[in-house]
């Protein structure tokens, strides 16, 4: 999701100004000159200033030099596979799976939810069915054992309570 510096800089100007305005509106502490508004106002104004500098291309030269240096040393390993515009939406799968986890884990329990998340993530990353199924079965059980049994994290049982609960 590469955007131009003009776009990200303008966004930061807007965000900074909104922050400074919202900070300015915070209620002061009675009898005290300095309150909770000072820090957000200063931070917001600085963000807006940085956004303006970025939009005008200040500092871009440093970035180009660093990228060229990294590429020359073989450290660049982020060649994106080009397969059409929709293909890039795959990046949203991991955060999407986390949201799915939040929505269903209390209803169906940790083991089934984690199995679905692991299976979908593995499949999306190109795993064969055998590997994806193996990960979906073993990873949730292993993680449940460590976090529930050893670390006492209260993971919901749902449909599939584990024997060590």
């Amino acid at each position, binding site marked *: 999701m590469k955007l131009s510096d003009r776009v990200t800089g303008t966004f930061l100007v807007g965000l900074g100004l909104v*922050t400074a305005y919202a900070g300015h509106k915070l209620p002061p502490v009675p009898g005290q000159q300095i309150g909770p508004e000072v*820090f957000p106002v200063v931070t917001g104004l600085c963000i807006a200033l940085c956004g303006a500098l970025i939009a005008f291309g*200040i500092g*871009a030269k440093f970035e180009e030099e660093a990228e060229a240096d990294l590429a020359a040393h073989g450290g660049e390993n982020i060649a994106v596979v080009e397969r059409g515009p929709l293909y890039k939406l795959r990046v949203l799968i991991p955060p999407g799976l986390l949201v799915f986890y*939040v929505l269903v884990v209390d209803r169906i329990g*940790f083991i089934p939810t984690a199995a679905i998340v692991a299976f979908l993530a593995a499949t999306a990353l190109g795993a064969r069915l055998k590997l994806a199924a193996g990960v979906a079965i073993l*990873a949730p059980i292993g993680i449940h054992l460590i976090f529930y049994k050893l670390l006492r994290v209260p993971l919901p049982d749902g449909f599939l309570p584990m024997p060590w609960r």
Partner: protein
Amino acid sequence: MWANYMEAFRLVFAPDVVIAIILSSIYGLVVGSLPGLSATMATALLVPVTFYLSPIAANATIIAASAMAIFSGDIPGALLRIPGTPASAAYTDEAYAMTRKGQAEMALGAGVWFSALGGIAGTISLMALAPPLAEIALSFSTFEYFWLAFLGLMCATLVARSSPVKAIAAMLLGLLVSCVGMENPGGVPRFTFGIADLLGGIEPIPALVGVFAVSEVMRAMLTPDPPPMPKRKFGSIMAGQLHLTKKYWWPMTRGNIVGIIIGVLPGAGADMAAWVSYAMSKKFSKEPEKFGTGHVEGLVEAGASNNASLASGWVPALLFGVPGDTITAIAIGVLYMKGLNPGPTLFTEKASSMYALYIIFIIANIIMIPLGIIMIRLASRILRAPRSGIMPIIVLCCAVGSFATGNSLFAVLTVAAFGVIGYVMEANGYPVAAMVLGIVMGTMVEQSFVTSLIKSDGSIVPFFERPVSAVLAALTIGALAWPVLYWIWRKFLLRPAHA
């Protein structure tokens, strides 16, 4: 003092601490060797586990895992030309060239041997520097603490391998994140949008896990799998390392010193140390023409440097609560959580705990040698593990680990949101490490800033009046003005000269 050391040994050799060191070392070695999984990510994923450990065991896991992961990143660099961690990127080409020349054993052996020596040198610097600095720091007021924290944030932006303006913007975004919640001078809800879960603020740990772990899984969705690791048998890993130590003792020492200085500098970490040391090694070498063709000298200096920086990075973290790098930013959270609040008094009130940390550093760097050799021998098998089998486990660890921080599902949503933010920022050249430092240090910066302003009745003059405060202010303002001055110099002064 000796009583403190005896107590420290007792703390370190408690069974839970020994088990924590061994298990986290193995974890650090495995995660660090897997391309795309950085030492910072390994450390961030470990934090939820530290909740349930004793203070010393919790810090031992962070120290051992990060030290091992930084070394272990050299393994795929040498064998596949893919750095396991960013700290190995500087000399990946050199190490791979050695492998192609049939010298993989020497490249990997130099990695483990000089990393261990560098780590021990960094620990000695931590032991030597921290107590006298603590004496000085005892006289610091909120003005000095404000400038120190601000200077730390500025250093992080100056050394970022990106546009300094973008790095400053990323750091400010981190400060903005730290504004959320009720923990502010007025105790009023700030930027909570009526969401009850935001009243307590955004916890740094889920944010860290999001920007370092989830964003990495997101990148994996679009990047091709690394090439499969060919099966190979290694000869003696440590053969010739003593000879190399004698031959390159000065580059090694220089690497240690540079690593220590960069580590102590707030905000700069192991990757910066490796880049600077590799460049220095090439510049001052008697055989600069051999660099890039598989020459071990650069590996010796940079390998010694990145691990030395890891230990010295704890100096500002322990003394001032100002992180030396992203790993110590996480460590500071663990220190607070375990009641070892950073500050100069830590060295007087909890001296035995401090000595215990020194001992753990030494032990971690010593056991790095045998464990590192085993790891190199097993590398062919571990590096064949399919990414599609590892990344789903990381997603699950992100969910369960962040939930464990407060038994709240809101933390899982925070992880997801910061994963997206981290991915977008990284893709557009905004360094996420600077944002993380902003998040971790935001409360401290605001507290010292507002307390100082209240003390001075709203005047900013006292910020520059005390001698130490004035020096720190000058350094900070210089760091802040640097990108603009550099831009003006290039734009208006350099161009007419070329014309």
